[in-house]
């Protein structure tokens, strides 16, 4: 196993490594889009609710975030399929097309699953952005920037946001596991041939080498993500300098 040979699938007799390579792109694409969607929703929402602290804007944003953390992602997926593919017919309900084949079809197929998956993460990140921003906005240096004549735009989007990023990145990193876990369910609902679906299939087939391979693969991704998080820390917090170690 250490030599990189993960063995063969008991069912299809393919090499586990090959199976993983085939399945990984769909999962990675799904996770990336989900992450993107969650950040694009969550950070503006968090900023608004921090800046308009204790106003209707704040309550509205917090309500959305709360719904985000409370709705199970497979249920969100089912509701999205019901509304947007079965009733409105805007998106395909299941299946997957690779980027290399057709970019538009690729995005069309992944839009709903990415939303279903990103919604939870968006809720968590919104809440963290808000509390982190509120904390930073209380700091003395924010007052210094105002005293220099900085506009609120500069104060919030340049200074406060950069200083709020550390806890936000941390929470994204910690909850990356939720995304990885969520893919299992979301891939199952939307029939996306990713490693999550592979895992479920192999569990039912008692295909232990594949189960082992998927778990190992996920752990490796997890480790890589924490590495990326560490590198981002260094960018957002100049006090961290890995060169000095």
């Amino acid at each position, binding site marked *: 196993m250490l030599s990189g040979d993960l063995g063969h699938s008991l069912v299809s007799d393919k090499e586990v490594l090959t199976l993983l390579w085939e399945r990984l792109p769909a999962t990675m694409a799904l996770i990336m889009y989900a992450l993107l969607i969650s950040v694009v929703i969550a950070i503006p929402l968090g900023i608004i609710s921090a800046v308009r602290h204790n106003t209707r804007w704040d309550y509205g944003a917090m309500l959305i975030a709360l719904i985000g953390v409370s709705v199970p992602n497979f249920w969100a997926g089912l509701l999205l399929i019901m509304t947007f593919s079965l009733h409105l017919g805007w998106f395909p309900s299941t299946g997957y097309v690779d980027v290399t084949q057709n970019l538009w079809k690729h995005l069309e197929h992944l839009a709903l699953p990415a939303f279903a998956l990103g919604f939870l993460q968006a809720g968590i990140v919104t809440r963290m952005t808000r509390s982190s921003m509120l904390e930073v906005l209380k700091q003395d240096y924010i*007052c210094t920037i105002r005293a220099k004549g*900085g506009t609120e735009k500069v104060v919030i989007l340049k200074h406060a946001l*950069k200083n709020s990023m550390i806890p936000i990145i941390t929470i994204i990193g910690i909850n990356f596991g939720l995304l990885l876990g969520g893919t299992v369910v979301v891939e199952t609902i939307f029939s996306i041939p990713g490693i999550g679906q592979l895992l479920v299939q192999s569990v039912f087939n008692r295909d232990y080498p594949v189960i082992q391979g998927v778990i190992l693969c996920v752990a490796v991704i997890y480790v890589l993500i924490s590495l990326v998080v560490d590198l981002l820390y260094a960018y957002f917090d100049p006090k961290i300098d890995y060169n000095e170690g």
Partner: protein
Amino acid sequence: MNSRLLDVKGLTVQFHTPDGPVEVVSSVDFHVNKGETVGLVGESGCGKSVSSMAIMGLIPSPPAKQIGGEIWFQEKNLLAESPDYLRSIRGNSMSMIFQDPMSSLDPAFTVGSQIDEAMQFHQKIAANEAKERSIELLRRVGISNPELRYHEYPHQLSGGMRQRVMIAMALACNPQLIIADEPTTALDVTVQAQILDLLNDLRQTFGSAIIMITHDMGVVAETCDRVMVMYAGQIVEEAPTEVLFDQTAHPYTEGLLRSIPKISGKKVKLYSIPGSVPLQRDMPKGCRFHPRCSYATSLCQEKEPPIQELAPGHRVKCWHSDQVIAKQGGV
């Protein structure tokens, strides 16, 4: 009138708290002339910081507030001007140095970029020109190797250096008025003296007026032309520095002066004013200082003393100022 840079008339600041409105500053009048250094002295909580923030237009809003009176600066009443106008003078013709240099600089940006920013907020200026001027400013405030320091982050600098950076930042647009809010309180004693010397030097070269907010009479003696003493949201005494030290007319000022440790002379127990600043909620009737005052009589408990002018420029708010002055010889 023309020599007046800043004229504050009847400034009143109220905060709305769950327990009702609280008046932190009560109809304060004062002025600052061009190029002079004025001290604003008092214990913490007396309203001196709030007054200065009101001048800057920076009182934080979350505790709902109400500001009354007039603040005249460059022929304009700042309290009647738009937030945009206020922003355009902040950091430009009026700037501020804060108490704690450790927390007043943004930790995520280099000090250089933070000084550049102070210029870029108000002037169309090319990045490399801003950089040149920032480096020059760093040199002027006595930072060695300014080219190198320009690229450093706040955490790489000592407290004294950071305060120098704050001063450089305040000077970036050649302001006419600098408000220095306890600029030395958070620093080591040796560094304190250096920073005060620097401020004195810069005042002469740049010609800016300074409002020196402090609780330390020693700082006042070293830097100020004129002093205003604040107690519980009111100015209780105002005088040129020497007059204030020689002919103290208010018991509170007397108390502040007696609590400075003297290096010369015998060891005596350091004086401290009994009691503490009253909470705004239960402000005493009559003179606000009477519960802590050794001169207090029944008159003080009932009626608030008026402001009397003892000599040109020497005003005091006390019923018994004559007794206080008379006592000077005996201390």
